[in-house]
C-alpha cells in the first residue's frame, strides 16, 4: 500500500467520523426535550464533527502535496468562540424560563444575568 492510498483511506475515515458526529448533533437538537438539554447536542458533538472534517481537509491537503495548517486556526477559533455562544443561549434560556429553573445562587449572590441594573425595563411576561 502506498502513502497515497493510506492518505486516501485516512481522509475517508475522518470524513465519516465527522459526518457521523454532525448527524448525531442534528438528531440531538431535534429530539431532546427542553431548551437547555437541546443546547448540549450542538455544542459538544458539533465541535468534534467539525474537528474531524477539518482533520480530513488537512490530511487531504498533505496527501496531495500542498500542506496547509489553516484548519488548525479554524479549529482554535471555533473552540474559543463556541462556548461563548452557548453561554449566551443559556442566559436567554434562563430569562425565558424555557427549562427547569436554575437554583438560587448561595450566600446572598444572584446569577449575573438576573442582576437588576439601572435603566432595566420592568420585566415583560412572554406571551404564551
Amino acid at each position, binding site marked *: 500500500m502506498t502513502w497515497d492510498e493510506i492518505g486516501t483511506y485516512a481522509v475517508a475515515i475522518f470524513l465519516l467520523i465527522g459526518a457521523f458526529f454532525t448527524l448525531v448533533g442534528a438528531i440531538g437538537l431535534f429530539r431532546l426535550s427542553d431548551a437547555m438539554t437541546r443546547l448540549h447536542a450542538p455544542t459538544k458533538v458539533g465541535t468534534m464533527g467539525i474537528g474531524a472534517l477539518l482533520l480530513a481537509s488537512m490530511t487531504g491537503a498533505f496527501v496531495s502535496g500542498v500542506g496547509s495548517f489553516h484548519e488548525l486556526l479554524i479549529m482554535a477559533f471555533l473552540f474559543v468562540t463556541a*462556548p461563548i455562544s452557548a*453561554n449566551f443561549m443559556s442566559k436567554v434560556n434562563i430569562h425565558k424560563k424555557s427549562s427547569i429553573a436554575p*437554583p438560587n445562587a448561595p450566600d446572598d449572590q444572584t446569577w449575573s444575568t438576573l442582576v437588576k441594573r439601572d435603566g432595566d425595563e420592568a420585566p415583560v411576561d412572554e406571551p404564551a
Partner: protein
Amino acid sequence: MKRIFNWLFPHPAMTLLLAIVWLILQKEFSYGMALFGLILGIIIPRATAVWWPDRPQGFRLGRMLAYIILVMWDIVVANIQVAWIVLTRPNSKLRPAWIIVPLDIRQPEAISVLAGTITLTPGTVSADLSSTGECLLVHALDAPDPDAIRDEIKQRYEARLKEIFV
C-alpha cells in the same frame, strides 16, 4: 535588562501566540513573514496593554499545553458519551440538572478558560457566573450524581488552572 524585556513583552505568551497565528495564516513559510509576525506580536500587546490592566502576571505555558492536550482527550471521550446518550437514551430516562460549582480561582482569565472547558467537555454547559464571581452555574445533560460532577470539575480542571495562572 529585565525592565526592557517587560516593556517590550508585556505578555510573552501572547507575543508567541500572535507570531504563530500570523505564520499559520501565510500560505508559505518565509523568514520575512516570521520577522513581521514577531513585530506584530510586539506591537499588538504593547498597544493594547492599556485596556488590559490586570492581566495575569504569571502564566505557565508548558502546563497550559499539557492542559490543552488533556481537554482535547476529554472532548473526544465526551463526544462519544454524549453521542451514545443522544442515540440510545429516551427523554424520560434523562436526568438533566443544574450544578453550582463554587470557585477557588478569582482571575477573570482563569474563570473564562474554566467556563469554556466546561462547555466543551462531558455533557456540561456553563450557563452563568454569580454576581460576585464566586460560583459558576453549570447545566448537565445527564447527572445521576450532581456532586460527583462538581467534584470532578474542581479536581480535574480548576486545580490545574490554579497552577497555570499564578
